[in-house]
């Protein structure tokens, strides 16, 4: 409840009204259950259900305001091996640690969620692709530097990242948006892990602007003719 709101009072003005007490108890219970239904018990991050709801909301906001929404998906690298080597308790500790790092390193309006297993998602409202990629790179760095495996000299805990941005001229469902970010995540895995992939990654070329071939067609005819005569063309 907002701290500015008046403390609730019985409308009939009775002290210790049992109906009113019950009402308050139910309100409190409702808040507790809502929180329970939205969070992941292990890490305290938002859960998948909340992720889908929030994504839907932010995409709607993008459609209304024109400000893009970005989404980062990340998956811990070789988590299964870690779990198998050091046990599930250690694995859980790692997940909790990652959750803390996520919370510490995203901005106030960003929504960090545990998507499932060792996969996490961060919704970035009002964020364009380059900023989202920068944030993903920062997270990747923080994770990679956070700590080493107990066995000295081995590699640290790393994660692979996929980043996607939804603009109001895209026509996508929240599911499709997630799938798209997930595709980039798979690409990051395929490229050797501990990396960030997105549609502006070097492997995806820019789409607008004129190509040199297109440009050439509009050079004046005399110019083309001269070039040919000098033998510098073709």
């Amino acid at each position, binding site marked *: 409840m907002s701290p500015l709101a008046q403390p609730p009072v019985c409308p009939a003005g009775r002290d210790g009204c049992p109906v009113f007490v019950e009402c308050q108890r139910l309100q409190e219970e409702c808040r507790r259950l809502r929180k329970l239904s939205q969070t992941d018990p292990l890490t305290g991050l938002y859960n998948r259900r909340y992720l889908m709801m929030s994504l839907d909301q932010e995409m709607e906001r993008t459609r209304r305001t024109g400000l893009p929404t970005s989404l980062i998906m990340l998956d811990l690298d070789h988590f299964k091996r870690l779990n198998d080597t050091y046990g599930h308790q250690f694995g859980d500790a790692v997940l909790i640690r990652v959750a803390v790092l996520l919370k510490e390193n995203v901005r106030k309006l960003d929504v960090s969620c545990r998507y499932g297993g060792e996969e996490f998602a961060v919704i970035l409202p009002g964020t364009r692709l380059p900023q989202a990629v920068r944030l993903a790179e920062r997270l990747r760095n923080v994770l990679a530097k956070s700590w080493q495996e107990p066995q000295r000299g081995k590699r640290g805990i790393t994660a692979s990242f996929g980043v996607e941005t939804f603009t109001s001229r895209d026509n996508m469902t929240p599911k499709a948006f997630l799938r798209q970010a997930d595709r980039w995540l798979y690409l990051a895995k395929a490229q050797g892990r501990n990396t960030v992939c997105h549609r502006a990654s070097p492997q995806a070329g820019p789409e607008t602007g004129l190509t040199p071939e297109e440009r050439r067609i*509009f050079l004046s005819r005399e110019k083309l003719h001269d070039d040919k005569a000098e033998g510098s063309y073709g």
Partner: protein
Amino acid sequence: MAESIFWCITSGKGGVGKTCLAVNLAFALARLDKRVLLVDGDLGLANVDVLLGLEVRATVRDILDQGADPSKTVIPVHPNLGVLPASSGVPEMANLGPEDQAVLGEMLKSVAAPFDHVLVDTAAGLSQAVLWFNTLSHCSLVVVTPDPTALTDAYALIKVLARHYQHDQFQVILNSVQGEQEASKTFETLAQAARKFLNLRLDYLGSVPADPAVKKALRAQVSFLEQFPQAKASLAVKIIADRMVRLVQHLPSARAINPEVHAI
């Protein structure tokens, strides 16, 4: 009542004679007994009103910001022709956000209802407003001169509209040409590029020859068609207007007037 036909007069490059052509085409259509609304779509640096020496009391901006009555903002300049002026020197108007687009779209639809043809004269460049006006219209009239820079910019605009907004109705008008041969040669270059790289067909709507009468009328703030009806340019514009009227039945109808456009 039949749906109003939206034409967007556009070019990519500035200074190719868009506004002048828009004004004269509007007069030509009005003389063919069509009811015409000329919209100044250069929301930041309007000059349809200057070209016609009009006294502007309210503009598109007043409608958006203060809810001015759109139908009272239209200035009648001919029994069949009204002008909806825009504001000048208001840079933020060049960037139309989604909210503005929605409001402006609704507004245009209601103002346009009594007219047969709506001509929107756009700004130069690839701003959101320019792209939006194009996607909103049934057909884009792309004005080019034989100048290579004008051709390149026109092509760039067509490319963005085709690739990002699935816009495919383009009619090309060649302006300030020295003869029909130069016009068709220039058009062929543009059409060939569009066919080859965009898999898109461009149509040739006509050409307007370079004519001293155009500049004379411009200085006097009148339409050349009205002032010099027998000038070469005037005859050419009349032919184009005729073709536009005949084209109407071939245009895909009822394009949704609520597209959303964003900066690239």
